């Protein structure tokens, strides 16, 4: 047998062939060397006791490990089952709470509407509230509008930089032009935009409210009919049209009969103060 690396071969061969502790061979050699004077080295009572003791230890160790592995396996299974049950329980609780939240929220809205509708002042406040809520993207809306689709240009074949990729500022400019043209509600890839929504890049991805949206980017808006021409004639519209001609990115604007937009998640309340329900004379109202 030939090998380019005799050392590693001998190491492997030694591992595979010389499985016996070399000590036995050495001891046997020594014994035969001085066989004349000490024919039986290592025998006698202490040797036998040690041998018996070692085997006792081997048996003991093996049994301990076997019993331990056997006893811990069902424990692990029990633990796993308990955890699974916990998860299911908590999930059911969470669903219940979610339902309860929706109910309570609806009750609160109804109660608010009833109370406010009773007075003219309240009616004004209610109208204002409804306008604010739809402005904040908290209600579902439907109506005529636009659908703008922005598409990345196909990647160049030579593997170079794709100049026709849609950037966060392209999306931003379209959305800003839409708001400027009188849009009442805007959504990107189905995500409703609120007053504090951010449209930012993170690496290659565009994030709307820190949730990624993907190519092609569909921007839907509900608003007046003039939006269509106003968007195309705006600075942003002209820029994107020229980019589309130069770099091959896709810009597609269509008028849509009915756009349906879902409510947004709503902004987190960051500042609030208790309402003054009674005036200084102890009467209801400000």
């Amino acid at each position, binding site marked *: 047998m030939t090998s380019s690396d005799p050392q590693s071969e001998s190491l492997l061969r030694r*591992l*595979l*062939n010389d*499985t*016996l*502790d070399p*000590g*036995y*061979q*050495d*001891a*046997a050699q020594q*014994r*035969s060397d001085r066989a004349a004077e000490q024919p*039986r*080295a*290592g*025998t006698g009572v202490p*040797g*036998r006791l*040690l*041998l*018996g*003791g*070692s*085997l*006792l*230890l*081997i*048996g*003991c*160790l*093996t*049994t*301990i*490990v076997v*019993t*331990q*592995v056997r006893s811990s396996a069902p424990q692990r299974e029990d633990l796993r089952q308990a955890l699974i049950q916990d998860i299911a329980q908590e999930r059911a609780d969470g669903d219940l709470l979610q339902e309860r939240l929706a109910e309570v929220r609806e009750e609160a809205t109804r109660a608010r509407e009833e109370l406010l509708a009773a007075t003219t002042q309240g009616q004004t406040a209610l109208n204002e509230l409804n306008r604010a809520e739809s402005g904040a993207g908290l209600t579902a809306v439907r109506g005529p509008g636009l659908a703008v689709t922005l598409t990345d240009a196909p990647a160049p074949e030579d593997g170079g930089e794709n100049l026709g990729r849609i950037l966060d500022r392209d999306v931003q400019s379209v959305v800003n032009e839409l708001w400027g043209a009188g849009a009442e509600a805007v959504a990107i890839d189905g995500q409703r935009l609120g007053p504090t929504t951010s449209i930012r890049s993170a690496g290659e991805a565009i994030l709307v409210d820190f949730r990624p949206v993907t190519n092609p980017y569909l921007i839907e808006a509900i608003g007046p009919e003039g939006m269509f021409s106003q968007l195309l004639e705006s600075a942003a519209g002209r820029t994107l049209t020229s980019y589309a001609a130069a770099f091959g990115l896709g810009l597609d604007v269509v008028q849509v009969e009915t756009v349906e937009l879902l409510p947004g998640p709503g902004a987190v309340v960051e500042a609030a103060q208790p309402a003054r329900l009674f005036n200084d004379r102890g009467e209801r109202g400000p």
Partner: protein
Amino acid sequence: MKGIRTGPLIPILGLGAGIAAGVLLDPTVPTSLQPYLPIAVVAALDAGFGGIRARLDGIFDAKVFVVSFVSNVIVAGLIVFLGDQLGVGAQLSTAVIVVLGIRIFGNVAAIRRHLFRA
């Protein structure tokens, strides 16, 4: 050359007593030692099969057997302990198991050749 005539009685008695003790006493192992116990058992099995083979080869020596058993168990445990401290405990355990497993396999094959001449 003839090996040492230690009758098989004492080793078999010892092994049986050890198994009985393990079953009856059901000792609890400290948690800190638990990861090293399986490795120690494999090392002990290696020493045991080595001893049986040496006996069949006619070169068994009680002292060599005891020393190899004790040192095998301790060294295997230490290697795994060291590996744990270095963060490569699992890999070193695998290395120890592979080497000891090959040795056990080889020794059992030698024992088989002795017993069945095949």
